């Protein structure tokens, strides 16, 4: 038998075909749109790099809008990471180590993760309503004016609380797995060394959690950077443009105004940014691992 046979390519062909139809063709369509201006009746006119230039120029209408949405996205990601990561670690530290309590806690924590995005949005849209929502009415009952449909701060608060409710469990479960991987001898040695709770956390638990935390932060950053469904269902991007994140703005541009060219250019830049962040994280992580291996 020949060890090398070009007919083997035939076996890979179906995969190429699937990828072609599922990824390459749609992406190239978007690239095609991004260099044209669209009018009704399927008329397209060549616009070259025009949309990209406008997109990256904050003084233009499109550029200003893009920058504002990007800013909202970054602030949103920053806030939810700042809440979910410490909170998730705290929850993981408090979780029982074994027994039926652990089973109960695990199931309860997994529940939000199992709810579909649009259902999460719907739950919070009702839950936080000022008139009939349990949460919204209760807050208003305390004398605090809270209405996510009319007040930008309230809208942000709702969207953030919703994300924290939905995703803190993920960080907590990751951290829990990380904590369980620490051998008991470390805790015993720390007791013998007279270390307090904070010293144990700072010198044993946190360093051992570094890896899972990097993964957790990566997952949550990417996911929150691409967030669409939940705020769309709750606030629809409002009030005004207060919670219009990049993806919501993109849909407004593409399907609301039917500016296919602008929307295509924006989605490409958006995609590039996500890829860039992934690449930076990936490189950082592999270098971290490589450094660790060199050491051991």
């Amino acid at each position, binding site marked *: 038998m020949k060890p090398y046979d070009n007919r083997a390519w035939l076996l890979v062909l179906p995969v190429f075909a699937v990828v072609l139809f599922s990824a390459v063709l749609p992406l190239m369509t978007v690239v095609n749109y991004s260099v044209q201006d669209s009018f009704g009746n399927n008329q397209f006119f060549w616009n070259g790099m025009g949309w990209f230039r406008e997109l990256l120029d904050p003084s233009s209408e499109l550029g200003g809008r893009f920058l504002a949405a990007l800013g909202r996205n970054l602030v949103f990601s920053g806030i939810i990471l700042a809440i979910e990561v410490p909170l998730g670690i705290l929850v993981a530290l408090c979780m029982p180590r074994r027994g039926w309590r652990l089973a109960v806690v695990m199931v309860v924590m997994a529940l939000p993760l199992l709810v579909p995005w649009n259902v999460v949005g719907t739950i919070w849209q009702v839950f936080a309503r000022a008139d009939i929502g349990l949460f919204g009415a209760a807050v208003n009952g305390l004398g605090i004016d809270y209405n996510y449909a009319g007040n930008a701060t309230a809208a942000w608060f709702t969207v953030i609380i919703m994300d924290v409710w939905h995703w803190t469990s993920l960080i907590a479960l990751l951290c829990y797995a990380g904590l369980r991987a620490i051998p008991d*001898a470390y805790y015993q040695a720390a007791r*013998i060394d*007279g270390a307090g709770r904070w010293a144990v956390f700072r010198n044993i638990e946190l360093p051992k959690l570094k890896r899972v935390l990097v993964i957790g932060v990566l997952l949550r950053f990417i996911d929150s950077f691409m967030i669409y469904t939940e705020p769309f269902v709750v606030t629809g991007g409002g009030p005004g443009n207060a919670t219009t994140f990049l993806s919501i703005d993109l849909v407004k541009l593409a399907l609301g105004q039917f500016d296919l060219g602008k929307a295509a250019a924006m989605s490409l830049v958006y995609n590039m940014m996500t890829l860039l962040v992934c690449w930076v994280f990936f490189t950082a992580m592999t270098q971290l691992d490589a450094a660790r291996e060199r050491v051991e």
Partner: protein
Amino acid sequence: MARITLDGIGHAYGPRPGGPADYALQPLDLVWEQGLAYALLGPSGCGKTTLLNIISGLVQPSHGRLLFDGTDVTHLPTERRNIAQVFQFPVIYDTMTVAGNLAFPLRNRGMDRAGIVQQVARTAAMLGLTEVLDRPARNLSADAKQKISLGRGLVRQDVAAVLFDEPLTVIDPGLKWELRSKLKAVHRALDLLMIYVTHDQTEALTFADQVVVMEGGQVLQVGTPAELFERPDHTFVGHFIGSPGMNLLPAEVSGMEARVDGHALPLAGRYAPLDAGRIEVGVRPDFVALTDGPGLPVQVDRIDDLGRVRLARVRLGRHRMVATVPPDAVVSGSEARVRIDPARIHVYADSRRVAPL
């Protein structure tokens, strides 16, 4: 600086222990003297680690009292017992330098900076870690990490005892000797009570002044390495210590003679008539020699050449035993004779040694 007294210390899992099977550690009384090195030796699951953890306070014994210099510490938490422990796998604080690791127990106890620097320098010098003090601790080899674990115990001047839980498990064979002699040197220099858990008899016998042999949650014998070798109190001790272990042969003993499958073995002492239980005679292979002269007739099954020594696997009647082949002896055929030193034969009734009258 302390002497440790175990007063009826035992440990049972479950609230109301019935028989001996419910005990991980049978209640026992022992006194460990300041300045000596003890080894807890036994196979896995014999209760030696449980005993160590009771001393360090990681396990609360279900029975008995633990005294450090006469003070009852049975219910004191680990951090207030002034003990140091080195674990099976090196435990170091990854994010700190070697110096940071050594300083950690002192910082936790609120020592002033100058004192810490001085103590860390002294400990590092003793363990040979001075060169690497500023290196991150995670970059070091396993044996250096074990030295750091030990150092974290030794920096504290109030330390009463140092406990080792099979500390050489992950060390390269070549470095084991070196680290063990380091431990011995530290022991001599500091005059500390050291307790060393291991299942390796060589480690136990070379390290310790006194070896505590355990099996099935019981202490079978406490003695110097020589005592354990020459006069095992229990057949398990005879068998477990020595390589290969003691020969044990079912026998009938009366007066100054033992009969093994029809062959008469003279004994060095006179024994009261033994008729209850299982009677065995035990003799180490080192004292059973193949000979050309008069002796007991045996069948030779096999000769193992271990380089330094040759061992013969022989049968005396129906019973197998191991004998030493003298350096100049020539073995031909399967018939041979063995000479057994009567003073080295011990008599066991139900596994316990019986003293001659």
